[in-house]
């Protein structure tokens, strides 16, 4: 079942994308694609239709909240990640529509899975 969970990793740092891919795949997720900015994320979401988007808050062109605002009604489940803490974004996360927030250093497949429906 886990193999069927597809995930798109959106982050502007290649090293994080690489580690995240390895970690998530190790934990059974199917990393179907990667994007390095907000616009790329929106394109890849539309193209790949992943089940989950691992979305970095801090992107070069727009932040993760802006990407969330532009997603349509049939959107994948989004998990926000950031090297900052959730408290740095306070209420923004709750109001964004994302499934949750994971600090980058705490990312694991289990952590993601906990947030999914």
């Amino acid at each position: 079942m886990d193999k069927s969970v597809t995930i798109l990793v959106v982050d502007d740092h290649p090293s994080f994308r690489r580690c995240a891919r390895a970690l998530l795949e190790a934990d059974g997720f199917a990393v179907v694609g990667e994007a390095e900015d907000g616009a790329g994320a929106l394109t890849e979401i539309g193209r790949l239709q992943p089940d989950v988007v691992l979305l970095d808050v801090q992107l070069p062109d727009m932040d993760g909240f802006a990407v969330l605002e532009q997603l349509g009604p049939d959107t994948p489940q989004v998990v926000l990640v950031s090297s900052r803490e959730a408290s740095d974004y306070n209420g923004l996360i709750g109001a964004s529509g994302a499934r949750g927030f994971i600090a980058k250093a705490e990312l694991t497949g289990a952590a993601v899975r906990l947030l999914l429906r």
Partner: protein
Amino acid sequence: MTRRRLAAAVGLGAMLYGGAIYLVATAELGEPRALIAMITVAGLIFTVVGTIAALQRPDNRTGAQMLAVGLLWSVGALQLAERPFWFTLGYVLSGVAFVAFAHLILSYPTGRLHPGDEWLVWIVLALVTLGPLAVSLVDPTPIPGCDDCPQSAFLVTDRPGLAQAVGVAFGLLAASVAAAVFVRLVRRFRAASPPLRRVIGPVYFFTLIALVGLVTANLVWTFDAGAGFAIELAALGALALMPIAFLAGILRTRLQRAGIADLVIALGNGRPLRDALADALGDPSLQLAYWSSQRQAWVDDEGRTLKDPIARGAHAATFVEQGGRPVAALLHDRSLADQRGLVDAVAATASLAFEKERLQAELRAQYRFLETIIDTAPSLLSVVDTEGRIRNFNRAVEVASGLRDRARIEGRYFWEIFIDPVEREAMIQRFHEASPAFPASEYENVFTDALGNERVIAWKTAPLVDQNGDVVRIVAGGIDITDRKRRELELQRQWDFATTVANTIPSFIVITDHDAVVVKEGANRAFCDAFGRTEEELEGTSFLELVARDDEFAARMAIAGAANGVPQAERESCWLTLDGRERTVAWTATPITDPSGNARVLVSGADITDRKRQEAEVRASRSRIVAATDAARRRLERNLHDGAQQRLAALSLSLRLAESRLPAEAAEAREILVAARAELTQALEELRELARGLHPNVLTDRGLGPALEALVLRSPIPVEIDVPDERFPPAIEAAAYYVTAEALANVAKYAEASVAEVRIAEEDDGAIVIEVVDDGVGGADPARGSGLEGLVDRVESLDGAFAVESPAGGGTRVRATIPTSPRVLPL
């Protein structure tokens, strides 16, 4: 006394003296007959003189009293009767005439008794009646030495000794009374004025001789009838002369009246009026007073005002009138009041002379008045003849010349006194050139007076001409303007000083009138130089034309306020130079009074254009520094985030991945990896804190609201927050964020508060107000290193204001106000 009564008295006198003369003529007695004959003669003289006096001066009682004495004296002739009763009655009443005589002499010359003299008259009455009556009761021959006389008809007992004693007793009493009268008369004579003495002197003289004689005779008679008879005869003779003396007085008055002719002659000869009148009236103490209609007062012949009442003391006044108006007054001896006719005649005779004297006195009075004015006037007045000699001058001339002695001025050339030696020749030449017309002129001269003081006199001269039109004198009027000149000089010095100061200082000075129009010489050099206008160009123009349009209304109000006497607080306005450049000037408007006493407005200002520019530059510089600092912090935070944090996060994931890939038996290696990841997590946390302190990224990305909400989430005490959603310029957002962050940090550290409140709002004027309020202990002092002072720089660099209210025990309110359109925005 009326004429009818006088006629009756004269008739009675004729009858009485007819009888008396008959008795004297027919009596056969010896010595008594001679005595009674003398008494009868004396009585007859009194009767005749009294009648004349009563006719001459009906208003004076003296004549009537004298007539009464004469009539009563005739009764004494009864002593020549052969029948004892008539003889005795005549003897007893023979002295009654002395009662009337005592009244006459004590009341002479007015005819009225002095107060206190009545009792003396009553005593005389008692003496002259009771004495003879008593003698007639005890002495059969009351007239001593008259053996042929009938015996006393009133005899009660023949007691010669008693009779003698009674005679002596009454004689002594009579002597006492006579002495009292004597003393009175002597006193009155001594107190009398010379004219009065002339009137009463002869009368008193004969009266006193008669008194002494009668008293002596009365006393002597008792012891020596012959001697007594002789003395009494002599006394009676003196008594008989008394009316003669009185008559002489009346005649003298008549003679004085005759002397009026001499008065007319004396006046015609130019004798002084007062002396001529004093002679005519026989009153050397006479004074004259003249009515000055101009001054409405009595003046003396020198024109000096006399005080009212003009007659006092020994003097009485007789007023001379002409045409119903007073002309003069004769202040004469009161005794002349009795000779009203004489005084009136004299006054009438001299009436023309009085008018002349009155006019002269009035002229003198006017002269004295003018003289007083001239002498007390502060102006110098002098009269110079055509040769330049001073002929007359007033006191001010003495003072100004320094010569306090008239003799040292009179007759000297005026240039010797009023012109300094160096200018003297020129003055003499000018004076002679002006001859003979000496036209009116004005000039000012400086000279050194006799005391060595320099004086300045402003002169005006005018010629005085005679009937031929020739100049005879030159009148010079001068005002000593030494002090005025000195004050003018002093004022000029002060003015020069003030002008020098005003033209030297770098501040602007403009003086305007109430309508803001620049007055003459109303701008200083600094102003003229700075605004490219000359004093002449500025005079008469409106100061407000120099003020930029935006500031003109405020400037107009300031000038108007100062014109109303209210000094105006300093204000800053933009003034325009001639070439249109703007200068920022800090200036005040102050009400002043110029040297001429005109109310003016002093506009005083300093050019602060450069200072203002420098201030703006400093503020902009500060803003740039703050902005640059903010940018650096943001950059650093971004670098941290994008660099180290990302790499460490990736490293953490790599360690986690490595850990998951370790075989189950590599427990030791796993532990190492776990420990390394824990360190890494700690390092990441610390790095996050560092980045957050550098700059909250969410502030840049999401604005104040999200940034502050994140901030308060980390606060250890509950914080209520009210922040608008809109975005503001980054510098303002940064300032608002850091003010709030620092204030909340202080709340956490020091306030011991239970709750805090953050409120950020945009005011109506567009300013952002940041308030952080807590309910803590208060007492915060921004100067005490609470981290707030750095915020002051940050807020002020944005043209904002920063304030802390922190009463002890009353919580703390930090308030920053930042305009959203600051004059200088960071680049």
